[in-house]
Each structure stands twice: as C-alpha cells, then as structure tokens.
C-alpha cells in the first residue's frame, strides 16, 4: 500500500502511531513491509490456503464473534441436502458438469429454496452467463425466511459446512503450501483474533495482488468470511478495502465501463426478445433494496431517453444493448484477431503494455480496421504500428498493418471539472484549474461531440435500430473555452430529479412510473437541493471524526456500509469504544455519528409480516439490507461460478501439486488454447521443469500502471529509469546472474530482458520441502517514453477468473537466465522451440 498508494498510506502510518499493528503479507519485502510491524513472505498464488487457515483457526478455536455470526450472517442457515463440498468430492462441488466445464448451482441453495427456474435458460453458451453473476447479491426464490439452527450445531448448517470445508487448512498446510512457518502464521492469526470482537476491529486492505488470479474473486470471498466471522463488517475500523489502481476505478464500476452492468449495478439485459416485464421478473428481489430495482431502472431509462421514454413503450427498454455472449476485454481482443471486432476505443488504458499477454493485445491491434486512442501522450497502444517490439524485431512490417489509428490528445483532470470516486465510495469533486492546451479536450467534450456528430449523421434515418441514438436525451449546458458540457449538469442528472425538475435527495424517492429521472440510483442525493455535495470540503478539525461533510459517499452519504451491524441485535453499540450507529429509544430512530444504513425508523424489534416486500421484508436485526435475506453471506448459494465457498486451487501454471485436492486448478477458469497464447506446462505435465520459478508482477511508487502518466515525465523516469527484475542472492547464484546486469526471463509465451536487482527482499521459500525462488517483475515498461523496456505482461498467457474475467498475472512460472534476450529471428526461434526443448530441459529442474 505504501508502494502503490503512498498518499492513502499516510492514514495507516497515523493509525500505527496511535498503536495499530500493521501486518503485511506479500511475496516480496516492499516499502510497505519496511514500516510494518510484521512482514509475512508468501508464495504467490497460495493466499486461499493462508486465509482459509485463518478461518479454520477461528472456527476450530471458537474464536468467532458468536453473537454477530449467529444474528448477522447466514451461519445458521440450513443448506439443501443435495449439496456436496470439495471435501466430499476431492476439490469439486456438487453440480459439476464435466462436459460443459461449469457448475449448476441448484444443489448449493438453502434448504427448501430453488434457483429461479429461468436461471438455467439464461446461461448463454460461452457467455459470462446469467445477469445475476457479478451484478448484485443473488436472489432467493422463496419469500419464506430460510430454515435455520441458531445453535449452529446442525451438520447441514452453513457454520458446520464451513468448519468442515476449511478443516484441512491448517498451520502445517500453510507451511507446506505458502512457505510461511507455523509460528509466523499463528502470530498473524492470533493478532487478528485478538484485535477483533466487541472492543476492537481489524481491516483488510488489498489490491490486484489478490484479484489477478484464476481464483481472484474467491480470494476476496475468503477475506469476507474471516471478517464476517470476526464481526469486522459494518463497524468502524473494520471492512475490506479494495485499493484501486487509478483515481476513479470505483467510479468506473459504479457508472460502469463493464459490459455486463448498467449504472448502479443493475444487470445488463441479455438476449433479443426480452421485455421490461421479463427483465424485472428475473432480477427484482422480493426482499431487501433490490426489490426497488424497477424504480432504479426506469429512472435510468428516463435519464437516457427523456421524453421519448414512456410507459407505453416500456420506457425504451428495447433500446438498451443486449449481451449476446462474453464481451469482456480479452474476448474482444481475441475477436479482433478472429475478425469480428473491427474498431476499438482506448481511453486511459494502455493494453499494449498493461493487459495480460500484452503481446497478444498488440497483435490484435494490427487486425483492426480502426483504433481511437485518447491519452496525454502517444502511448504504446497508439504507436504499435511503427514501433512495437514485433516491428522492431522485424516480425511484422508497418506497411502490412491496415489499422487506421486516430490519436486524440486528452485533457488532464486539472483541465476539466468532474468527480473521482475512491475505494470507500467517496465522491470528491475537482475543479478545472486551466483550459486544456492545443487540441486536448475533456472526455465529456469528446463523447458529447461524438454523440452530436453521430446524431447528425442519423438524423434522416428511418432504420428502427437508429432510434436509440436519435431519441437520446442529449442536451447539456455548455461552458468554458471549448464548450464542454457542464459536468455539474451531468452530476445533477446522475443525482436525479422529479417531474418538476426538482433534484431528489435520495434513491428512496425514485419511482417506477416514469415521473423520476436518475442516471445512477446509488448516487442519488449527491446533488440534492441543487448542492454539489462531492465538492464539500469541510476540514476534519471542524466536524466529527466521521467527517460526513468532506465529499459525499454513496449511498446517501453513508461512510460505512451495513453499519446497522455496529450495534447489537437490540440496537445498542457492541461496546462504547466501537459505538457508531445505535437505536435511540427516545427519538424512536437510528442515530449515531454516521447516517444509518438501515430504515431510519425501523426498530430492532421489527419483524416482517408474511407477504411484505422490499425494505419491510427485512427484520430489525438484519443489517445486510442489499441481500435478499438481510444477512452477510459466509456461504454464497447463488451468484458465483466457481463455488459457494473459496477453495484453494493452484494457478494455471504452477511448479507444485495441489496438496489439498486432486483438482489442481480452478475447474471453471477461462483458458484459451490458441496461437499466441501458450501456457507453461503446470505440475504433472511434461516439461514443467523448464519453468521452475514463480513469477509475479507489481507496481512501483515511481510509475503509474502501464506508464502513460510516468514514463514520459523526466522527474519520474529518472527515479526508475529501467525495467528490472528482482531476484534473491540465492537465485542469482544458481543462475549466475549479477546485480545490475541484464537477465532474460522466459515463458512459453515470450522472452523478455530486464536489468537485475539482486535483493534479500525476495527471499526464497520452502514449498513442499523444495526451495522455491520467486522472480519479481514491475510491469510498467514499453517501447515509448523516456524510460523504455520490455513489458512483463508479454510473459503471461491468458487464463482468467471465471466470475469477472480478470487475467492471472500475479502468479505463473518462468525461467531466468543471465544476459540479454535474443533479438529478431533468434528470439522467434527460442520461443517457438521452447515447446521442443522443454522436455530436454529438465536438467534445469531443481
């Protein structure tokens, strides 16, 4: 966190100064480790063993926060009789479809409930699947509360299933699989448990070191299980913080750049003939706040199509694009090569460097008809046609590339108004300080103008498919030298307004009759009373410690989600020290330091009557109001593609056997056996010994992601002027590599060269009794800019997490050799012959 989020890390340092214990778990000893109380080096790709063992430590020692677990999680819920765990099936859950390489989640359901009948039909072959995936907490098909055992003794209750599931995740297993000693593991587990409970809370912070795996989502799920067991969710000082890679990645998920979501986590509809009524039927929950999904959706449709959206035409629901398959990044990249993706907009990204298998990404660009790149500088993704490594090496000639490249200079955040949404869902406004220079324009200007031009071109079209564009509500006041659409006017539209045009103060005011307009329901209230609340900057010293008047947090300016959990079932704080929101008997409402994330006047004693819906169907003791059952899900019956509980699987390429199950890797991971995407042999496969080391990628403080904002600046480039790899003195000696020299890192997919930093900070580990060396690779470099170098992402063949399609670039295997890589034909031969040479290369296997 100090390494990649130094500004945010100031708060960790402040907490440390006040006595907080900081534990850092990372394969390498980083700038974070340097100031932490404890650094725990771990084998990249083994975190579920580590986290699962913490869950096991809690469960087998009775260290869970019992009152919290019984009342606020689904620990007591009885799971259907058909469910079989990975313990029963040696690494698979029940419902495994060997032919389709996927799970049917029917058997994972709570007892007496069923998956909505249509779910099976909703699966589109080869697609990301039904809308419930990734969109929001799954729905429960019955309106009855599920069967429970509050004593947590029933062998079919979630608590007991969880206990059995993690029972072999022991300190000894951690030692064998993660390379972490029993003592060190226990030190962490004890510290976490001791710092949780009524009086204390602990937080997890993570970044893409956890997500970029074929089991990435399940990493986070394991942390969620630990935090729920310890009562660290919905309480001050608790939580799981996703540290984002850019300033507004959270914002780009809320108002998404993701193909399968609409703003506010409403699923994107699939299929062609599919009415608004069908969509609502399938995605509306009976209980909890997803019951109001029609209000959110119809208000959004009104924001898109304004007056054209009426009750008679389903509020233009038909105009929404439909998912017809997996349209995620990597499918699109392969679609370019396969010829069905012809054009590509690249905004604030640099896939030629930053995406997994960047080499394949560069190849894809050469197949396009046209490419638009908007950035500050001519990044690798814009310059690929004349200066990519492949062009430099003579593998491809510029004149053979037909892609028409449009490079458009973009305005910086200082040159435009707008907002950033950070990891804690906090919107902060930034004001334009100066006009952008030259041809640089804001994103708002670009998209607005593009819309205007397209609408102009379609103005006489009678083709029904063009109506979605022709009828868009596309009027915004303009301002500034270049006529930017007013960012505040857009924020106002996102906030929403009623039929009279008066701004709404909360999403609870939204309606499904077309009388309200709202661009993103979770942001509703950010512009209430026509006040730009993200622009609020009351200093911390002038308000209480929750600081509600600094920026604005969705939803409803709540700083901690599910904060009903900060009070006990009776509504009293768990402890005076951790008081946050509580039930005020006198006022008959929830009060506290923050806005309660609960029905303001719903008392703890409230119990829903039969047949009630929405918020009224959530009892006064159920804090997780977005879940259909109001409880935190230790066990996920619906919504995940790779199982209801996190399970350790080895990465796509691993030098080690999965000690826990016969099932080596995530059975539903996405893999692509195709040219330009060659996997290293994994454990048990012929030739694995040619790649005896584990490699992982990461960032450095001095550079920004794929380098577009740092490698072109002299003051940042000079601080880290070269692509380098980090290896231990032991590995350096083993391979005859010297500090400061060059080394070549090799996978089946590519061979790249880097300067060498030999350091004790990347200590060898002992895994399954064998020495393991890890190679550390910062991934910032490419062919352009002041600081140039090979791209670490070239080494990684694409293997993806099945839920969110994220690439596994945090753990794979490699070889490393002294000296610079071969160029031109020699390089070509090395890579192509690696197939043949691997079998003979086992001499390298230690």
């Amino acid at each position, binding site marked *: 966190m*100090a390494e990649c989020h*130094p*500004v945010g*890390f*100031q708060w960790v*340092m402040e907490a440390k*100064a006040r006595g907080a214990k900081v534990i850092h778990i990372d394969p390498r*000893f980083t*700038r*974070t*480790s*340097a*100031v932490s109380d404890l*650094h725990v*080096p771990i084998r990249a790709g083994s975190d579920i063993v580590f986290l699962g063992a913490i869950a096991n430590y809690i469960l087998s020692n009775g260290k869970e926060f019992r009152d919290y677990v019984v009342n606020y999680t689904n620990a007591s819920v009885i799971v259907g009789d058909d469910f079989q765990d990975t313990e029963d099936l040696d690494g698979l859950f029940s419902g495994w479809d060997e032919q389709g390489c996927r799970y049917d989640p029917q058997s994972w359901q709570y007892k007496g409930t069923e998956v909505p009948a249509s779910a099976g039909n909703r699966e589109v072959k080869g697609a990301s699947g039904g809308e419930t995936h990734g969109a929001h907490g799954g729905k429960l098909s019955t309106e009855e509360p599920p069967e429970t055992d509050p004593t947590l003794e029933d062998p079919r209750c979630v608590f007991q299933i969880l206990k059995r599931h993690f029972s072999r995740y022991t300190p000894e297993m951690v*030692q064998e699989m993660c*390379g*972490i*000693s*029993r*003592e*060190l593991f226990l030190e962490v587990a004890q510290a976490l448990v001791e710092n949780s409970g009524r009086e204390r809370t602990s937080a997890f912070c993570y970044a893409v070191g956890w997500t970029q795996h074929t089991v990435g989502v399940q990493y986070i799920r394991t942390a969620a299980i630990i935090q729920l067991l310890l009562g660290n969710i919905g309480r001050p000082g608790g939580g799981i913080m996703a540290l984002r890679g850019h300033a507004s990645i959270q914002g780009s998920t809320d108002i998404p750049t993701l193909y399968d979501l609409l703003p506010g986590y409403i699923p994107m509809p699939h299929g062609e003939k599919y009415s608004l009524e069908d969509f609502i039927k399938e995605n509306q929950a009976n209980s909890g706040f997803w019951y109001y999904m029609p209000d959110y959706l119809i208000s959004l449709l009104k924001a898109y199509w304004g007056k054209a959206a009426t009750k008679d035409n389903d509020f233009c629901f038909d105009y929404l694009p439909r998912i017809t398959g997996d349209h995620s990044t990597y499918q699109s990249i392969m679609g370019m090569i396969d010829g069905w993706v012809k054009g590509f907009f690249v905004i604030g990204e640099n896939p030629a460097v930053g995406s997994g298998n960047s080499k394949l990404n560069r190849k894809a660009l050469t197949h396009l008809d046209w490419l638009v790149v908007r950035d500050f500088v001519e990044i690798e993704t814009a310059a690929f046609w004349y200066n990519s490594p492949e062009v430099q090496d003579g593998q491809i000639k510029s004149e053979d590339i037909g892609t028409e490249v449009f490079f458009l200079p973009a305005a910086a955040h200082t040159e435009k108004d707008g907002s950033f949404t950070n990891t804690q869902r906090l919107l902060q406004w930034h004001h334009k300080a100066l006009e952008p220079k030259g041809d640089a324009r804001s994103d708002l200007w670009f998209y607005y103008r593009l819309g205007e031009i397209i609408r102009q071109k379609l103005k006489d079209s009678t083709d029904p498919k063009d109506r979605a564009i022709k009828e868009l509500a596309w009027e915004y006041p303009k301002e500034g030298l270049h006529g930017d659409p007013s960012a505040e006017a857009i924020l106002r539209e996102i906030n929403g307004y009623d039929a009279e045009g008066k701004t709404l103060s909360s999403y609870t005011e939204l309606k499904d009759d077309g009388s309200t307009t709202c661009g993103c329901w979770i942001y509703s209230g950010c512009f209430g009373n026509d006040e730009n609340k993200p622009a609020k900057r009351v200093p911390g010293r002038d308000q209480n410690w929750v600081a509600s008047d600094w920026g604005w947090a969705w939803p409803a300016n709540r700083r901690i989600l599910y904060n009903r959990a900060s009070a006990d079932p009776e509504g009293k704080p768990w402890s005076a020290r951790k008081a946050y929101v509580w039930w005020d008997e006198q006022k008959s409402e929830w009060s506290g330091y923050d806005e309660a994330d609960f029905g303001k006047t719903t008392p703890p004693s409230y119990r829903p009557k039969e047949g009630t819906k929405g918020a009224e169907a959530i009892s006064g003791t159920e804090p997780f109001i977005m879940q259909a059952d109001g409880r935190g899900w230790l066990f996920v019956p619906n919504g995940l593609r790779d199982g209801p509980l996190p399970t350790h699987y080895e990465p796509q390429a691993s030098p080690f056997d999965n000690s826990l199950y016969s099932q080596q890797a995530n059975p539903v991971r996405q893999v692509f056996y195709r040219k330009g995407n060659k996997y290293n042999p994994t454990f048990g496969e012929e030739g694995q010994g040619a790649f005896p080391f584990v490699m992982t990628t990461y960032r*450095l*403080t*001095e550079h920004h992601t794929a380098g577009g904002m740092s490698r072109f600046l*002299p*003051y*940042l*480039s*000079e*601080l*880290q*002027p*070269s692509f*380098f790899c980090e290896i231990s003195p032991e590995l350096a000696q083993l391979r005859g590599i010297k*500090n*400061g020299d060059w080394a070549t890192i090799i996978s089946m997919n590519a061979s790249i060269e880097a*300067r*060498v*930093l030999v*350091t*004790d*900070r990347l*200590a060898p*580990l*002992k895994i399954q009794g064998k020495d393991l060396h890890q190679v550390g690779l910062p991934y910032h470099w490419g062919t352009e800019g*002041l*600081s140039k170098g090979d791209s670490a992402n070239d080494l990684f063949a694409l293997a993806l997490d099945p839920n969110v399609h994220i690439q596994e670039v945090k753990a794979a295997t490699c070889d490393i050799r002294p000296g610079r890589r071969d160029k031109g034909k020699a390089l070509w031969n090395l890579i192509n012959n690696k197939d043949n040479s691997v079998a003979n290369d086992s001499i390298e296997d230690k």
Partner: protein
Amino acid sequence: MKLTTSDPSKVAGWNTNQPRMGFFTDTSICIGCKACEVACKEWNQVPEDGLNFLGSSYDNTGSLSANSWRHVAFIEQKTQSQKQLSDGIKDSGVRWLMSSDVCKHCTSAACLEVCPTGALFRTEFGTVVVQSDVCNGCGYCVSACPFGVIDQRRGDGRVWKCTLCYDRLKGGLEPACAKACPTKSIQFGELDDLRVAARKRLEVLEASGETKAQLYGDDEKDGVGGFGAFFLLLDEPQVYGLPPDPISATNDISSEWKSAGKAALALLGSILLTVGIKK
C-alpha cells in the same frame, strides 16, 4: 571561531523577530515514495539528473547534487536477530531503511564562509541560500561542504543546492518537499519546536526497542554548530552515507589565521632585521 548560537541570522546581521526555520526529517516513518525529490524539482525547476539504473536498491538518484536537492537513500540490511523458525524456515530477516537527505543548512556553514562573491548568504530564516545570479562558479564551497551537498552543475558551472524553498518561505508557504511528504517524515517548522518534537519521538522509538535510533545534527556543539535540517536515524549515520562527525572546514580558520599572522610577523621582523643589518 565556532558558533554555538542557534540563531545564525542574527550573527549575519538580520534584525528581525523571525525565528530560525528548518527541517526535521524523521526517517522512521519515511516510506521511500520520493515525492520530496519530485516536488523539489517541480517547484525549483531543477533539471533531470540522468536516466541511470544504479542497481542500488530502489535508489537511482545516488546522491545529492546540483540536480538533486533531495535524495532518498535506500539501505537494505540483514537484521541481526533473524528468528529461526520451524523446519529451517526463517523470517524475512530484512530491514529496509529509507531516508530523505537534504542540505543541512549548518549553523556554521563552511560553504557560505568560503564564498568569495557573497553568492551564498544567510537568510532571515537562518537558512543558507545560493544566489545564482551572483555565483561565479569558483567551486570553493564544493570542497568546503563536509557533506558533499553543494555541487556545480555541468554545462552551467554555477553551484546549486536546497534553498529550503526560500521563495515559498517568503510567501508564507512551507517548502515543497515537506508539503508533498505523505507521512510527515519531513517536517518543517521553527527549529526549536522541531528539536522538542524530535526528542519526544526518539523517546518513543527507544521505548519500542529501536536501540540504535538517534538524532543526527541536533547538537549545537557538533562540528558545524548543529543543523538547520536535522534527522532522526534508525542506525549510525555512516550506514546512510552520512559523515558521523562532520566538521566545518572553516572551524579552525581563526587559529590558522593566528598562525599565519605569527609567521607574517616573524617574516616582517626578519625583513626589518635584514634592512637594519644593511644599514
């Protein structure tokens, strides 16, 4: 002449109520982000210092120079007390020290004292600043500095170093590096206050078992009369590449002048004597 006053601006003739200002760099909370290096260069328009990979931990700046007025040192150490854990597994056994170095703005500043043109001067804040429009590039100050801080810029000839953001101070702002530091490792303020804060911080660290933690440059009795920009280090100064006992090159100048005077008198006497003999 050895200064023992902490208010060198008074000695330099400033007649103001301005207290002496300085830096306290607490290296125990430095996270090595180098924001200080970048902020300094941005504000002071210091040129890029070469795109050289040094293979020296995460330090590619190397040292303070005419083109680097802040320098974050990265020192990787094997810890002494590496715990032996089960089955031959060891803990990291690594310590990584980071420290943002800067001009010390000495109480007794040799660079200033040897400067023949008056380009180097003592400001009303007690800091030492080069006036680039006066410097003639003679380089006397370069050899006089006991820390190797002040340096001639190649192709320019003049000397450059930290001004403690004299222009920002004049405008009531804190120096750029301190402003940019996310963890308050670099603290700017009245030197007297900083010294109190530093001693308190040292006590906390000592109580937590940091046995080698020490203040560097807060002693007015040291060879440069104490630093205007002093440090809290977690190890001996030489570990960070800092001289353990810096002495101002001009400390002995008065005694040297006395010796020279005696020699001159003796010479004069012998001349007179010779003349007398001639007579």
